[in-house]
């Protein structure tokens, strides 16, 4: 069986201890929560971890509550809890739906929101064993110095593959981050960089502690669509959240909207629909938005299935998403 390399596991019980551990341990310290992404990657040797700081026992990360117009979801809340919570289903059903589409029942039981937010980027050249990677000399993200997806490229383009991130961005969610300097809050989209090797814009002594999800107003409609080869287990190959806000009192007229696309590169792509303000939400708009998305999004050969097909698929999913929102 594929074995883990020895590491030291520390299991702090408070955020304070976590921060202390992160600041005292230097290289190859990794935060582990559910471990469903990290452990396979450690087994494959695609990442290294000498010290793992576990968040499993940090109970203060496991709160899920409604506060004013927000859902506040601790980073340690399990994906299963979010997908099946009556509170989430009642207030932000699209989030329950998207999280319910993640991987498999077991992985949703183990995985956490924090883990899904910080999910490592994926690429057919990195999610391989050490042996396979050695056979082609590795890549920018592991053991090598070249990119096989964009030959000559100097920035890793491994794909953001989280099912929750596009929806959270569409919802306008923020994340609270804690570090030695205290807490700060940033929009979810600012959590990601353009570099697939280090795509989380946190310093090594910071931790995502919770997400703040605005409960959508009555005139906001959001949906999430995922395409993968299988209906369970798989990461998305096409992933898109679509948000439509109509004008108060005129459910057929667009006030604002956005489309958030995953599985392109390390960052989600956000397309704002403000230029369509005042236009009727109808089939024509569905086509128009699909066209915009298709023009502005470029799937790469970082995950299986051809770029051309995924581009086409993305447009169809966007079109159908909008249809589903106004019908």
């Amino acid at each position, binding site marked *: *069986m*594929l*074995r*883990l*390399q*020895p*590491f*030291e*596991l520390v*299991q702090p019980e408070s955020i304070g201890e976590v921060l202390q551990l992160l600041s005292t341990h230097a290289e190859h310290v990794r935060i*582990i929560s559910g*471990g*469903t992404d990290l*452990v*396979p990657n450690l*087994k*494959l040797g695609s990442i290294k971890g000498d010290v*793992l700081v*576990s968040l*499993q026992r940090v109970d203060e990360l496991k709160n899920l509550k409604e506060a004013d117009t927000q859902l506040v979801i601790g980073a340690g809340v399990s994906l*299963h809890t979010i997908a099946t919570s009556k509170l989430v289903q009642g207030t932000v059903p699209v989030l329950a739906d998207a999280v319910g589409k993640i*991987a*498999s*029942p*077991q*992985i949703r*039981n*183990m995985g956490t929101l924090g883990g899904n937010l910080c999910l490592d980027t994926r690429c057919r050249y990195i999610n391989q064993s050490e042996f396979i990677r050695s056979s082609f000399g590795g890549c920018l993200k592991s053991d090598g110095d070249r990119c096989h997806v964009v030959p000559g490229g100097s920035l890793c383009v491994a794909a953001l593959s989280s099912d929750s991130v596009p929806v959270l961005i569409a919802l306008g969610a923020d994340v609270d981050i804690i570090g030695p300097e205290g807490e700060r809050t940033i929009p979810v989209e600012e959590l990601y960089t353009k570099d697939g090797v280090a795509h989380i814009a946190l310093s090594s002594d910071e931790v995502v502690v919770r997400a703040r999800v605005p409960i959508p107003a009555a005139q906001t409609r959001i949906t999430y669509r995922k395409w993968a080869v299988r*209906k*369970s*287990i798989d990461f998305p190959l096409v992933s898109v959240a679509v948000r439509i806000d109509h004008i108060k009192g005129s459910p057929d007229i667009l006030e604002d909207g956005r489309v958030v696309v995953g599985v392109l590169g390390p960052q989600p792509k956000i397309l704002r629909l403000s230029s369509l303000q005042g236009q009727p939400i109808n089939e024509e708009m569905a086509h128009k938005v699909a066209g915009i998305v298709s023009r502005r999004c470029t799937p790469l050969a970082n995950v299986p299935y051809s770029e051309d097909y995924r581009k086409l698929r993305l447009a169809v999913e966007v079109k159908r998403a909008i249809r589903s929102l106004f019908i």
Partner: protein
Amino acid sequence: MKQNIHIEQKRDNPSSTSPDFCHRARQVEIVSFVLNSEPCQVAVPSHWTLLELLRYAIGLTGSKQGCDKGDCGACTVRLNGQPVLSCITLALDATEQHIDTVEGLGMGGTPHPLQNAFEECGATQCGFCTPGMMMSAAALIENKQKAEQTNISRLEIATALGGNLCRCTGYRKILDAVERAWAEMS
């Protein structure tokens, strides 16, 4: 509880009662947990997974290893009642938790209704995925019973078993078996 156990070994004497255990001078930790309703303590290297703990440290080999890294579900056990993948669960995360494996489902004269149903429906062929499959199914049934739900649909069963790959049966008889066990248990 952390302990450094150093075992002096001669090259020609790799003493081992169970494979792979206590070979190297390495950091081990004592994991205390409840295994199949019985308290249990066992020393494991801190980088072992729960599956390694079960199979190699304790010798409960009912939980299987099929894919190495959380892709197939053959290693599914229940952690505090919920199905998890033991091959990517760290052993130390079982500390103070309840772990249930296929061996705890039913043995000898008192098989679990799921085990009977799997046998009667022909839901096990090679049997390699079956322990994990039944752990997912048992969790589904118990969760629904706790929620006092009285009906079960085939889609619900299929969804709950969506993380357990079977290569022999085409799943039909597995879904039949879970339906039958559900009927038996409710």
